[in-house]
């Protein structure tokens, strides 16, 4: 009897989480202003940087690529994800500001489903965003050399990484309940991406900046993802990207969960 009840609760929790994930995705989709920058801004930067740094690919130490567009593909996906993941936190903060979050708490919804719903929605959207960006890059002459398997792997990495980055913005949203404060986190993420191998190879940097960039978790995620795109699928690179995303996720999601419990107590 108890086991049946526990199974039923678990099932209801999953269904509720699924419904909240769907709500989150539909909500984001219906507000083009919140996701169009996630596509336009990375593409704009890719277009400008590829025209600026096209000659840099001939420099000794630069990875073997056909064009700078090909090199910058993972950076563009990372940028798009960080925009989108930040938006997940902002949306949660708006839910808190509008009182929707409190209504959810007061309703018979499994506590974990609320958090999973919001973050899962961001992850699904980020996976779709990565796929869309890869299609655009393929159209401008920078296809995924690893084929469909590498493309699927990159979509999965993007979704997983979205949880990792989104965890921080969710944590800030839960702590402050302010969409403005949550949005202010974006420049910090952008700086973290900049001080990595996303836009330029660390081998062509020098001094302390190079040291920091080499140990930046984003470098450890971007490099294997880039190899998946350029050299083809390998379990080692796929695993590395997932592992380091997991390391970031363990920090951000723990923080988000802690803030979530704090808000539940306050509510």
């Amino acid at each position, binding site marked *: 009897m108890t086991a049946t009840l526990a199974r039923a609760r678990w099932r209801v929790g999953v269904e509720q989480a699924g419904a909240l994930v769907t709500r989150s995705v539909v909500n984001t989709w219906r507000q083009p202003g919140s996701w169009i920058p996630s596509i336009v801004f990375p593409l*704009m*930067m890719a*277009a*400008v940087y590829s*025209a*600026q*740094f*096209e*000659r*840099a690919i001939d*420099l000794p*130490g630069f990875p073997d690529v056909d064009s700078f567009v090909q090199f910058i593909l993972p950076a563009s996906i990372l940028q798009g994800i960080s925009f989108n993941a930040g938006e997940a936190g902002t949306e949660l903060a708006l839910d808190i500001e509008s009182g929707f979050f409190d209504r959810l708490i007061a309703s018979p919804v499994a506590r974990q489903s609320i958090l999973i719903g919001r973050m899962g929605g961001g992850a699904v959207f980020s996976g779709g965003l990565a796929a869309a960006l890869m299609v655009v890059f393929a159209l401008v002459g920078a296809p995924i050399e690893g084929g469909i398997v590498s493309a699927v792997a990159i979509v999965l990495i993007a979704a997983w990484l979205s949880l990792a980055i989104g965890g921080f913005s969710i944590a800030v949203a839960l702590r402050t309940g302010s969409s403005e404060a949550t949005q202010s986190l974006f*420049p910090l993420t952008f*700086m973290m991406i*900049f*001080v990595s191998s996303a*836009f*330029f*190879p660390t081998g*062509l*940097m*020098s*001094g302390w*900046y*190079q040291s920091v*960039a080499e140990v930046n978790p984003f470098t450890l995620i971007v490099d294997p993802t880039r190899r998946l795109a350029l050299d083809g699928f390998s379990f080692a690179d796929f695993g590395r990207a997932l592992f380091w995303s997991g390391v970031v996720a363990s920090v951000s999601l723990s923080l988000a969960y802690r803030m979530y419990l704090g808000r539940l107590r306050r509510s």
Partner: protein
Amino acid sequence: MRSPTPRTDPVSAFGPTVFEIGRRSLIRIVRMPAILVPTIVMPVFFVIGFTGSFEGVTRIEGFPTEDFINWVGPYALVQTAAFAGIGAAGTMATDLDNGFIDRLLVAPIRRSAIIFGPLAYTAMRALIPITLVLLLSIPQGGSLPGGLLGLFIAVVGGMGGALMLGSMGLAVVLRIGHIRAMAIVQIVAFAFLFPSIGQVPLPLLSGWLHTVARFNPATNLIRMTRQGFIGDVSWAETWPGLLVIAIGLGVFTGWARYELDQRAP
């Protein structure tokens, strides 16, 4: 018998009014230092981030300097000063919301003072990133072969960029009447400054960007600001930048004044 109260002519009160409006905005900074955070963080990020990430491009044959900071520092100076200038739009949006601009519009002052007051504040505010970029460039290996004249021209370039974007921000805020105008002006600023000679010289740019950067007015402004960092100052590289500032200021302050008149009772 009391002597008559001296009457202040609106025309002669222009300077003091501009000063007081500008001072009022500066007091806002003292009361809310948080609004200065992006103005301080951005220069640090641009100088350190751009130099650290892209210094390898100086190894490309034909790059005009070996120290990337001398190339990218002036770009960071113009960009951060311009973004600081957009802060004038934020002040105007707040003052529109709280009704201060409406009160100024019915006050016996020259209306242009309502535009030039925030611009005076913009000029003061722009000095923060300009100073920061110059100071941060020194430990990065920056040099100024153009000497004091090169430094002066760099400050003029940064200040000009701030005032242009500041006046554009004022015009857009007065048009829209909302703080969202700042985001619009930031995008416009980005769209001009990014596809220019900011990070790579014109001959090394390829494809569409070469054409866009060649005709982009931001290229002239950056070229003028940069010259003292990579060599001597010359009139040939100065006047196009000054022309861009003059035209930009003329057009945007005129537009802002027009929008202000539309709001007058």
